[in-house]
């Protein structure tokens, strides 16, 4: 593990060197300015470094280009929707629909995932089902998905190339005015990696800059007790500010599956019904919940784990008291747990001007 961390450092460092060397050796007038992620102290103190691909270092121009692309309807076939249509800043970069509508008004089958702290997804499996194996790869699929932006990459690239601004912006970001699908998704990924949320009430509590109420503290205790909520095994703990293990679990939503989740990706029946554990940050902004948006409120989510579990062959063994439907929290325990979860809300994240259109 230590070796992996060191290797990532080295790869990242040489990525920066190569970029700078290429820029200077080409003798171009504009050199993309490196702009490493500003890692929050609560992250650097507690978890290993983010993953930045060696062939896509963060640059000021790349991030700016990615932001513009993220909010631009030009990526959709009919020019009506952008990434931000389903990943809105005020909703912690998700939307408020159970499943999002594509440009043709057709609803998908999955809830739009909130976007933040993605550079710390160490296993680099993205989407509810882990289908995308990097952030850059993830950004490719929605553009062409018929129930999302329903576009065609050749057409998108042609439109960008013919645009009055984009060729110059790509030149600034990547030292080439020739636009490609790969460079487009690289830029979007650079912007997405800047979406960092680390300034919730609970973050401030950990840094002795906020005080939790007795109810919130009791909620934390329920969260962290194996004989109560036992949330921590999948959703982390105060020493892991991501509040997710970024792993895949069957959390007992269904006894039979209409969506196989990870199982459809791996082809392994033992993965059927498994979906990525989402982060518990910013839940106040990101209802509805679960991969299919079936729960409108946090109360419904907590009730599910308390008495709504459905057994199936692949249910995660970490699910407790499945035969009783769940961990059987009292009404007061549920209320306190909810209050604790809401301390992970980060208002500065959704108000950050760097993240607005």
């Amino acid at each position, binding site marked *: *593990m*230590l070796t992996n961390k060191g290797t990532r450092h080295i790869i990242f460092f040489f990525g920066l060197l190569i970029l700078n060397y290429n820029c200077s050796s080409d003798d171009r007038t504009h050199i993309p300015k490196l702009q490493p992620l500003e890692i929050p102290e609560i992250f650097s103190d507690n978890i290993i470094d983010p993953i930045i691909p060696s062939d896509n270092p963060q640059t000021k121009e790349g991030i700016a280009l990615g932001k513009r692309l993220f909010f631009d309807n030009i990526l959709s076939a009919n020019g009506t929707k952008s990434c931000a249509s389903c990943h809105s800043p005020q909703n912690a970069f998700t939307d408020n629909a159970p499943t999002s509508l594509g440009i043709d008004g057709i609803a998908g089958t999955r809830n739009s995932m909130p976007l933040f702290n993605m550079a710390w997804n160490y296993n680099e499996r993205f989407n509810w089902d882990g289908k995308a194996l990097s952030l850059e790869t993830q950004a490719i699929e929605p553009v062409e998905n018929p129930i999302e932006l329903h576009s065609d990459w050749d057409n998108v690239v042609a439109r960008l190339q013919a645009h009055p601004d984009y060729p110059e912006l790509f030149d600034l970001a990547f030292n080439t005015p020739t636009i490609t699908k790969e460079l487009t998704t690289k830029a979007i990924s650079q912007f997405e990696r800047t979406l960092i949320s680390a300034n919730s009430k609970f973050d401030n509590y950990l840094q002795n800059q906020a005080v939790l109420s007795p109810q919130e503290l009791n909620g934390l*205790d329920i969260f962290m007790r*194996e004989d109560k909520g036992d949330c*921590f095994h999948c959703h982390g703990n105060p020493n892991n500010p991501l509040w997710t293990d970024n792993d895949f679990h069957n959390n007992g939503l269904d006894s039979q599956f209409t969506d196989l989740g990870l199982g459809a990706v791996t082809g392994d029946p*033992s993965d059927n019904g498994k979906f990525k554990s989402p982060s518990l940050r910013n839940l106040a902004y990101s209802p509805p919940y679960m991969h299919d948006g079936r729960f409108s409120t946090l109360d419904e989510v907590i009730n599910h784990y308390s008495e709504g579990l459905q057994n199936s062959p692949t249910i995660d*063994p970490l699910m407790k008291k499945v035969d009783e439907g769940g961990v059987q929290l009292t009404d007061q325990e549920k209320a306190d747990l909810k209050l604790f979860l809401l301390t992970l809300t980060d208002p500065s994240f959704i108000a950050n001007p760097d993240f607005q259109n």
Partner: protein
Amino acid sequence: MKKILALLGLIVLVLYSCGEDNDDNQEPQVYTTFEFTHNWDGTLITSINFNAIQYINENGDLLSIERLRYVVSDIIFSNEERTIELDIYNLIDVTNNDMSFTPQEPVPTGTYNVSFTFGLDNEDNSENLIDLNSESFNVPDNLGGGYHYMQLDGKFINSSMEEQGYNYHAIRAVENLGPNATFPQDTFFSVDLGNIVINDNVEVEVEMNIAEWFKTPNLWDLNELNQMLMPNTSAQILMYQNGQNVFSLGNVN
């Protein structure tokens, strides 16, 4: 001035000569790789064998393994000449096929008694270990804090003939849960691999017989002890006792 320069030159020459002598006397340094393999009473287990209910423990419970990861730390090489303690730790993650590591520090060639710690000693367990944090391997503060020593999860067929989850999670045994928790006894333990000849870069296989966690000296009944074992002090001590016979030395290449 000339005398000073001459003196400096002499000192440099002497130091250089001493350095060369030391190099001549140095023993070769080699690297050790530790490869952890897993079996059920001799039958090899990898992640490919996970998820199917196919193993029978000593108590007769039919069970599966779905997740297995554990920490090993503080590798010690000792012989009559020296003791080398590597203050390191590593997460062995069978689920994700991450089962070997090579300490960065080489050791001089020789024959050593080799041992390691299963879990983390109390000093290491009280540190903020960011790579274990990143794996969400922590133990809640209300259970004494620190880290899991092991997570072994799966399902078994219970006495009602239904599949039920189990979480054989080994941690530092704790009593009086809460901010003033106390620790009745240590539950990390040292594993002695015996003497190993290390004359070149070497790969040391360490075998874990998973069945032993359920067997000796305490017959483990999954119908009695299956989940919520972290706050169960006596269960933690039983795990500690059963763990003594779990590891053994495999091939050395």
